[in-house]
């Protein structure tokens, strides 16, 4: 395996002097300050390391490129005249996958954080003492260990899924983890293990592991073509690697573009080109929302969350206002609003781990208000971006969820939303499936959608777990505080419909079991899609967050939500009840769904494809037709409830603590949202929570425990179930 090769190469130095290790460690030190450089060199020599020094970043890169396996670790200064230290860090991570230690006289927290985000394995404050240098070998060992673990995992996985996941991670990790491919892969693997791949089995593609060599070939091809003209097909031809498909190249290109974008100063606008596998541009996806989501997705982990948040925000907005052009903005609200902790690093981390689902949820709740939505979206994006950057935390789950949400959202919100909605009620316990919940509900045709979602989820997960987590945390918070923020999370002011956060326990379980593998989040995707017609890209797996944004600020949200809502929620809610806000909720739920799916290994490629096909989800829509038409607004509300449910479900699935049975329904009071906002709520939960919040208004009907409602509704009407989610106001 390529990775194996690089790992073995990495071990070369050690192997040659096994007993003397860490003596002989080959260090490259880069600093434009000659005084520091000479001191460092002497210190490292005194540690018995083999030192090469250079005072320019470009020189360092060329040395590294020429000597691919000639170094074990790199130490670089942050402020350099020819190239920013973080850029160098990313380059090295991407191309050589070596551990990089950053140094600076600057000990400000934000700079250190930047280092972490960009993938530095350590950060030293100048003046550097020799004691600090004595232990740098640990980073080399750690990286190798992680790398071989990844390899092991990929090798041992019998299922194609696992492999896929790994490749996915490899694909996504490049953007998500600056240079930390293996780690992300590893994380992804861990998370994917529990996912069912049923849905994506048909879409699976052979995994590609982007080894250093392969990546370098890729970069060479891209440079040859020119970054603007580099299309996967041509790159593939230039690379001439047998077994490599255009899709592999496409997804890798997306990550690479994201990475470049980050280097040039995170561009807030991820293209909205939502995951079109054909487009292969994650970059474009980065519309404000997309970017964040993508980044998150790539990085891992937040995507779902961000998306969810964004979505939620979007949803909220859409209902409230037609203009939701600032998805990011909303995000901001969402994030900041809900849970400061959710801010990127933290939220993501947690969310990611927790659940993809939850992340989604998180994102959503924050956007209760239309205004909030905008801000929240932005924040969501921001978060997402951040997430992508460095969220390395293995939030795979959240990622997936987010991704899914996003992807689905873009495509066709309808089906997704339906799913999401369904899931919501359960999110309380849903081990992870908010999506799954949706599925059964959607029964009609959701299954198909679901699969997509799943697929999407899987994809999303890999890269952006982090983002997801963030979202979820964010969402979760709103949820928890459902009572507190009746109106805050979701602008939905008067969401009559959404049933409160259905007691998650029961529902979720039911749903979860059903949807385990299902992508459940499909609806979310749909929602997003609808919401953000203009941002299809955002929906890329990674852009789950984006999805949110889009949904949020687009009036279309309503439309999207309608779809989903109709499926899920509508049933129960009267048209009149749902207000726009519900929509956001729906979006949220969508996100949630996706979050839930994050656990699924999914085939990123599949997802993409799914996404593209999402817009077709009609099954879900079908069901809700009647409902949806009734009141877009209501729909939203319902969605929220569902989202909440979903999130709760997701949360449960994910095992997020707070999520469990937190949602009690008291009718639609959002306040009752059992989903506690916890930083590690699954995105779904977050969404659910968000929905709840949003649906304060909506939920007036006390449907009783969400789960029961859910089920009940299910029986009664496919859509009604959704409504069960109570959105406590």
């Amino acid at each position, binding site marked *: 395996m390529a990775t194996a090769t690089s790992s073995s190469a990495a071990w070369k130095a050690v192997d040659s002097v096994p007993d003397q290790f860490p003596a002989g460690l080959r260090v490259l030190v880069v600093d434009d300050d000659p005084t520091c450089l*000479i*001191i460092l060199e002497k*210190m490292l020599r005194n540690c018995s390391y083999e030192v090469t020094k250079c005072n320019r970043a470009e020189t360092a890169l060329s040395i590294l490129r020429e000597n691919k396996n000639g170094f074990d670790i790199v130490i670089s200064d942050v402020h350099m005249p020819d190239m920013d230290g973080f850029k160098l860090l990313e380059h090295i991570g991407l191309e050589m996958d070596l551990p990089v230690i950053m140094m600076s006289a600057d000990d400000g927290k934000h700079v250190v954080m930047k280092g972490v985000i960009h993938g530095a394995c350590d950060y030293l404050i100048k003046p550097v003492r*020799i004691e600090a240098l004595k232990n740098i070998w640990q980073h080399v060992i750690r990286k190798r260990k992680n790398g071989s673990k990844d390899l092991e995992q990929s090798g041992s996985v019998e299922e194609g899924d696992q492999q896929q996941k790994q490749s996915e991670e490899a694909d996504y990790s490049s953007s998500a983890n600056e240079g930390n491919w293996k780690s992300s892969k590893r994380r992804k693997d861990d998370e994917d293990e529990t996912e069912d791949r049923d849905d994506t089995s048909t879409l699976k593609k052979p995994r590609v592991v982007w080894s250093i060599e392969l990546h370098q070939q890729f970069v060479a091809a891209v440079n040859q073509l020119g970054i603007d003209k580099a299309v996967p097909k041509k790159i593939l031809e230039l690379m001439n690697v047998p077994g490599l498909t255009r899709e592999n190249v496409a997804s890798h290109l997306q990550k690479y573009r994201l990475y470049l974008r980050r280097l040039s100063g995170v561009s807030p606008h991820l293209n909205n080109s939502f995951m079109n596998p054909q487009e292969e541009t994650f970059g474009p996806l980065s519309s404000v929302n997309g970017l964040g989501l993508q980044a998150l997705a790539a990085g891992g982990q937040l995507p779902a969350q961000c998306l969810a948040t964004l979505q939620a925000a979007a949803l909220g907005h859409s209902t409230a206002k037609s203009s939701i052009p600032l998805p990011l903005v909303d995000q901001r609200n969402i994030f900041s609003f809900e849970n400061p902790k959710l801010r990127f690093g933290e939220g993501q981390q947690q969310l990611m781990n927790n659940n993809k689902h939850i992340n989604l949820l998180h994102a959503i709740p924050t956007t209760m208000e239309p205004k909030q939505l905008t801000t929240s979206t932005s924040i969501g994006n921001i978060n997402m971006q951040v997430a992508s950057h460095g969220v390395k935390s293995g939030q795979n789950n959240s990622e997936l969820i987010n991704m899914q949400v996003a992807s689905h959202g873009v495509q066709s919100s309808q089906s997704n939303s339906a799913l999401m909605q369904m899931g919501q009620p359960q999110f309380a316990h849903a081990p992870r499936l908010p999506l799954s919940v949706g599925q059964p509900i959607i029964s009609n045709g959701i299954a198909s959608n679901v699969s997509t979602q799943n697929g999407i989820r899987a994809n999303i997960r890999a890269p952006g777990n982090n983002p997801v987590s963030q979202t979820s945390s964010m969402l979760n918070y709103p949820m928890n505080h459902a009572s507190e923020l009746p109106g805050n999370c979701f602008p939905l002011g008067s969401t009559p419909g959404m049933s409160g956060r259905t007691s998650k326990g029961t529902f979720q379980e039911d749903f979860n079991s059903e949807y385990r593998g299902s992508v459940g989040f499909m609806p979310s995707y749909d929602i997003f899609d609808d919401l953000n017609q203009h941002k299809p890209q955002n929906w890329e797996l990674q852009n789950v967050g984006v999805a949110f944004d889009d949904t949020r600020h687009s009036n279309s949200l309503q439309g999207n939500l309608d779809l989903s809502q109709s499926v899920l929620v509508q049933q129960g809610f009267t048209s009149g009840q749902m207000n726009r806000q519900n929509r956001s909720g729906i979006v949220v739920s969508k996100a949630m769904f996706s979050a839930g799916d994050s656990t699924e290994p999914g085939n990123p490629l599949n997802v993409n494809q799914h996404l593209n096909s999402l817009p077709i989800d009609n099954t879900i829509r079908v069901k809700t037709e009647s409902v949806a038409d009734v009141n877009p607004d209501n729909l939203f509300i319902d969605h929220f409830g569902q989202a909440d449910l979903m999130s709760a479900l997701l949360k449960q699935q994910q095992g997020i603590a707070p999520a469990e049975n937190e949602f009690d329904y008291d009718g639609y009071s959002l306040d009752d949202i059992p989903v506690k906002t916890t930083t590690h709520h699954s995105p779904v939960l977050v969404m659910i929570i968000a929905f709840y919040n949003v649906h304060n208004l909506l939920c007036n009907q006390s449907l009783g425990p969400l789960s029961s409602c859910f089920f009940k509704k299910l029986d009664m009407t496919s859509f009604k179930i959704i409504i069960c989610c109570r959105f406590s106001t």
Partner: protein
Amino acid sequence: MDRNPLRRQLQIMRKSFFDQGYLDEQFVQLEELQDEANPNFVEEVVTLYYRDSARLILSIEQALERKPFDFNKLDAHMHQFKGSSSSIGAKKVKAESTQFREYCKSRNREGCTRCFQQLKKEYATLRKKLEAYFQLARQAGPMETACRPK
């Protein structure tokens, strides 16, 4: 204490640097790097520092003469200067650098100018002291392991 009077004098001088706050622990780190293979390591580094930082000082001076002040540039230069100074353990110089950066952040022209003058003084003072120190060290012959400050 070394019986050699020159050495003793050297040691007293060295101790005063620490006592008076001209140098800090980082200087000791440099001293520890000095060994038989690099017997004049500390002197080499300090010489390099003064040579390299001279151009930074000049850049800052030129920037301070321009009106209006480009605080960001000034801050960037000073950040670099601070990094170098801290590497050799120049405590007072480092403190002045920090102060200068504060003034830059608060866009205080007067503060920057004043602070810079102070910084240059400390910078020059330290240089003289260290030059005398190294000269004495060469006269005293190969140094034994430096005793730890306090």
